[in-house]
């Protein structure tokens, strides 16, 4: 007969706090206390960071796109301004994180049943998502830092300490918008492959229309529209925070618009989100 070795190991080493060890009798005891959420969150974070590390090639690509743009714009920086260049590159990085990274990972894990497996454990569902979001926040930090380093070392664009600090803060706000947008797509679209193609399309439109429209190549009307689009408002607050002394009422309005977009996208994304695809 099966040796019961696993159960014996669990009992012998008192692995579980609820195991009763009265004399020779081994009893399975009912749990009256749920495992600590902090402990569960730590385990989830470890797993999510490991997953991200194993997908480090995609992280490198995430960093490469804004950096290549920044390097290729070296000759134009004097004309367009350091804040314009850096804010554009960070915005592109944030867009990639929210649309390409986060939403595709969520769609894939939902499709494979990874979330269902986690949901039958005694962890609050919010902690599953919080763990994923913390990984994305670290990526935002990484992209922003990387752009700052390349901007400083290669393009000789430096900011004041206040500028750097404020830009990190606004990068998180802008990142929240794109994570919200990614959440909305994954909430509205069930199929993982469709999520993948949708996010690629939206990313392409954001980058192309946003970047060229912002430069005025696509006309003045479109430039105005882009300015108040999710692309434009994020770029505006990033550019504004890089030069705190130039922060204007327009930048404040862009900040409010960014927060409003983030709230609206997140609300829709959470409301429409289903943990499984069936």
């Amino acid at each position: 007969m099966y040796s019961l070795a696993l159960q014996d190991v669990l009992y012998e080493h008192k692995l579980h706090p609820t195991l009763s060890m009265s004399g020779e009798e081994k009893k399975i005891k009912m749990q009256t206390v749920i495992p600590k959420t902090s402990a569960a969150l730590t385990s989830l974070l470890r797993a999510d960071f490991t997953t991200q590390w194993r997908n480090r090639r995609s992280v490198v690509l995430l960093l490469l796109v804004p950096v290549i743009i920044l390097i290729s714009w070296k000759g134009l920086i004097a004309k367009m301004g350091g804040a314009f260049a850096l804010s554009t590159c960070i915005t592109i990085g944030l867009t990639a994180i929210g649309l390409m990274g986060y939403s595709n990972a969520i769609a894939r894990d939902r499709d494979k049943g990874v979330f269902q497996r986690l949901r039958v454990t005694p962890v609050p569902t919010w902690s599953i998502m919080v763990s994923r979001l913390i990984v994305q926040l670290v990526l935002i930090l990484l992209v922003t830092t990387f752009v700052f380093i390349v901007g400083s070392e290669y393009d000789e664009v430096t900011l004041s300490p206040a500028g750097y600090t404020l830009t990190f803060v606004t990068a998180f706000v802008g990142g929240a918008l794109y994570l919200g947008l990614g959440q909305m797509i994954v909430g509205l679209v069930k199929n993982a492959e469709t999520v993948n193609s949708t996010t690629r399309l939206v990313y392409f439109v954001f980058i192309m229309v946003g970047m060229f429209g912002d430069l005025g190549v696509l006309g003045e009307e479109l430039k105005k529209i882009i300015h108040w689009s999710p692309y434009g408002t994020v770029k505006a607050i990033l550019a504004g925070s890089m030069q705190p002394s130039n922060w204007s009422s327009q930048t404040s309005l862009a900040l409010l618009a960014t927060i409003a977009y983030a709230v609206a996208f997140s609300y829709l994304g959470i409301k429409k989100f289903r943990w499984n695809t069936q």
Partner: protein
Amino acid sequence: MNNKPGSSILQVNGLNVSYGTFHAVRNVSFEVKAGEIFGLLGPNGAGKTSTLSAVEGLLKPQSGTITVAGFDTAKKPLHAKANMGVQLQATSFQPELTLAEIIKLYAGIYCVELTREKLQNILQDIKLEGSSSKKFKELSGGQQQRVSLVIATIHDPVLVLMDEPTTGLDPQARRQLWERIEAMREKGHGILLTTHSMEEAEAVCDRIAIMDHGNVIAIDTPQVLIDTHRNDQNVISVSRKGKITLEDVFIGLTGRTVRT
């Protein structure tokens, strides 16, 4: 509160589950006792997985109550989940994680301390001692089921839920899994499993409930069900081997029509 053999660890009362206008589970009631293997049988679409999903907390019932280890799943869902271990029909773990990392993740979620030595003992027990760095998808079906079961029971829950655990397994792997399930019963775990295999139900289940169109149409031990329906004309008419089997009773009660 210890689970004495025979004490009720899962109580399902008047459970109703609907998907839009489709009433998938209709007023279902049953209980699973400690040290008992309870089988939920039924044709496709009978409501087995919906019932199990409601117990697991994966879907919200329209009405009815579910109590696990004394905790109402609607009022104390996390307490109820802490007392159950679940093996899903199609278990999937993060594909980037290794076996050791997956086990550590779930041990961490349940606050089960896991040293390297203990992890090795667990892997040795499921005959995967050399596979700690393998990914889940690299394992065979039988190995995947053993990993799923070890994760489902890593916190030693009073109730273990298994959704078609032997689907796709070869006879050796299936027998091995049955032995593990029976070993859990001997330890005092209550086990609720769904299956399409009448052989499995007869071999391992102490009691079974047959579901059809969302209703429980029969509930008892396999032998009592056979004895009770031995003389039913519907059952006799589908009998193939001259003697009445559980499969004959099942088909006699649920009909010959193939469900999709």
